[in-house]
């Protein structure tokens, strides 16, 4: 079974709108990372949020972490067509392992 998983397979919003991708995980973690993968490319790290942090921002991106409910969210404001991609959460463990969820496909419509 997945140690980390996003809660939606796919989301679609219009350009300029905001969108949130949610992630849940099953065990104690060191950190949680959010990645974006565009078609034909490798994943690119967006935000790393450590287990003692509750929120992290990177430009239009905002990640939250709730260790009590073992969940995280990634919000994107003022979406653009170039935000179209698959978004992954990945949970990090003391051994250095990084385990990925199955990803949420986000489509931004013009």
């Amino acid at each position: 079974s997945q140690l980390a998983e996003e809660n939606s397979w796919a989301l679609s919003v219009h350009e300029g709108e905001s969108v949130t991708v949610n992630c849940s995980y099953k065990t104690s973690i060191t950190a949680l990372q959010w990645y974006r993968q565009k078609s034909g490319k490798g994943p690119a790290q967006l935000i790393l949020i450590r287990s003692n942090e509750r929120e992290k921002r990177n430009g239009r991106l905002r990640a939250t972490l709730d260790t009590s409910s073992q969940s995280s969210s990634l919000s994107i404001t003022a979406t653009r067509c170039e935000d179209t991609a698959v978004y992954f959460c990945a949970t990090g463990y003391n051994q250095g392992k990084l385990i990925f969820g199955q990803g949420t496909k986000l489509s931004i419509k013009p």
Partner: protein
Amino acid sequence: EAAVTQSPRNKVAVTGGKVTLSCNQTNNHNNMYWYRQDTGHGLRLIHYSYGAGSTEKGDIPDGYKASRPSQENFSLILELATPSQTSVYFCASGQGADSDYTFGSGTRLLVI
């Protein structure tokens, strides 16, 4: 610029043949990882390494070997390739679970 470079970008192999996928990083990271990506499964960890000379099994190591001869290089070896190993393989480097990770552009492997 620090980077992770994978070779080859595309590979066609025959069933039963040996395949070696190579990865080089210029990030000076201690940890390196091999993942495979298949539709519906996200990225799954095959092998990883904490440094030169070390390799550890990930979540799906069967049918794969790994080699870390130096800080910069990490190889994934399929001794007897099977069609079920057709996939896209990604290499990554990092300093630990709470550090920045960098991924390569991937190797698309087709086993026929």
